């Protein structure tokens, strides 16, 4: 009897999960299907579920041709790479110092970083914009990249990782006279590779998707990021929804691919962030 109950429980659970999964997938189904539709098919009443032909690539052609999405792609890749790699390197470097070296004011400095963690971006938008203007970085990639590189979360996370490695690993090297950079670079960092991957992917997704800051910093059309370009597809009067939905496919595909390929690390990293807090 108990056994039977258990099987039922699992079946009901499975059913509920399947329903939720289906609902989650509907928007994905819709953007893929709609990307092959003509404008007429998109706005037809009653709703047309499937396009007349799945080989109609007009939307894709228009997006990459007239609408220049290839260059927005390039901009996004420049920004994302420009943020992710320096952030990983510099945060780990700082994390090493916080985890392994004793120096004056260490705790004061560390706690002061917590403050940066709590500030909502909205609060610093105006002065930061002025700073970027004064530094001559307005309307440049560097204006997006440089303020996004220093990261409290990545530093904290990498510090945790380094602290979890046994001290005996680097102590003998230290006594043999190895420099700190050597210990960091050749001994500890290689042991952190899965943590680096996890935080790296999170940083990648975050910078790929960032919207508010690029919106403030970038002015000229040719420097738009994908998110600004997509937001601008939505016109004041006429919006061509078939193009918007095609853009959704084109822009999301790289991140979906990154996620599916690396999901083990990605999910591990996120799950850990909850446990560590």
């Amino acid at each position, binding site marked *: 009897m108990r056994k039977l109950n258990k099987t039922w429980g699992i079946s009901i*659970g*499975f059913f*509920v*999960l399947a329903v*939720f*999964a289906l609902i989650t997938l*509907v*928007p994905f189904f819709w*953007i893929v299907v709609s990307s092959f539709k003509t404008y007429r098919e998109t*706005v037809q*009443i009653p*709703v047309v579920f499937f396009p007349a032909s799945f080989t109609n690539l007009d939307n894709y052609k228009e997006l990459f041709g007239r609408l220049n999405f290839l260059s927005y792609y390039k901009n996004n890749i420049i920004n994302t790479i420009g943020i992710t790699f320096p952030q990983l390197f510099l945060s780990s*470097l*700082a994390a090493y*110092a916080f985890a392994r*070296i004793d*120096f*004056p004011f260490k705790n004061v400095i560390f706690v*002061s970083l917590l*403050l*940066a963690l*709590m500030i*909502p*971006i*909205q*609060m*610093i*938008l*105006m*002065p930061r*914009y002025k700073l970027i203007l004064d530094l001559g970085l307005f309307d440049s990639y560097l204006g997006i990249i440089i303020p996004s*590189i*220093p990261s*409290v979360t990545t530093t904290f996370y990498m510090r945790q990782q380094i602290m979890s490695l046994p001290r005996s690993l680097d102590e003998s090297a230290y006594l043999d006279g190895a420099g*700190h950079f050597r210990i*960091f670079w050749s001994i500890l960092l290689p042991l952190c590779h899965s943590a680096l991957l996890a935080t790296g992917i999170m940083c990648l*997704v975050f910078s*790929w*998707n960032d*919207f*508010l800051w690029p919106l*403030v910093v970038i002015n000229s059309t040719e420097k738009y990021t*994908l998110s600004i370009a*997509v937001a601008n597809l*939505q016109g*004041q009067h006429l*919006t061509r929804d078939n193009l*918007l939905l095609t*853009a959704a496919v084109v*822009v*999301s595909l790289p*991140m*979906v691919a990154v*996620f599916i390929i690396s*999901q083990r690390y990605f999910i591990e990293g*996120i*799950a850990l*962030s*909850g*446990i560590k807090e």
Partner: protein
Amino acid sequence: MQLQRKHKDWIWAYLFIAPTVLGLYIFFLYPMVSSVFISFTKWNHLSAPQYIGLSNYKRLFQDPTIWLEFKNTMYFVLVSVPLTVGISLFLANALNKKHLLGKGVFRTIFFLPYVILPVITAQIFMIVFNSRYGLVNGLLRIMNLPQPAWFSNALLTRFVIVLVTLWASIGYFTVILLAGLQNISPQYYEACDIDGGSWWVKFLHITFPLVTPQLFFCLVLAIINSFKMFDYIFVFGKSNVIVRENIRTMAFGIYERGFTYLEMGYASAEAIIFSLIVLSVTILQNVGQKHWVHYS
């Protein structure tokens, strides 16, 4: 003179932390202090800021739009957060079964929306909920149900925005909660089985207390995310002024006042009040944490 090794260590440490710490000071802490000053000025970012004392703050408390933004912000916090965390906990529980078919696939599917650009998520939902040719109303029509004009009034528009946040964030929170659930030792459940406890007893006396650290983390994160919601409001309000005036949140108001109407001083004052609210919520939560989070 040979430098002592200890002092050399200090120099290395400062060199190592310098880029990150200086970067954070320059791009986070300095602007934070600076925005307090800007909030006492009238500044359109073209001419020099002009000191006007507390005027921005006085104006702030008399501005009905700000009150609306505050109410809307609280609405999303109070409605989305419990739904997000509640459904995530439910899904994490359903996923936390040993012999569940396709567990990994489910987790992947739930998580997928998290990696989509929020701007795009908002646009997809605007199209799917379009009153004339949207998928949702198309399906409702087939089922002979009423087909509301989703963006015609504030209540329905807010409902769609809550759905968007749920769709986008549930997977993330489910993953965190699932990790917490998997950490619970099966012995507790076995002991409860022997005592003949029902699933409800198990949930209330084992699962819930032991998952409170993760639950707490999710709650804090969900509340902060919901306060900071900008992208969805930006997209939903873009092509429809009436909708925009109904759903605007503080995060959106700060941006619009500063960069559309070029009232940097006024926008900064709103940003300060906004940050104080977020900060006090964070402090309240930290106090509350001590009372109801069980760390095993």
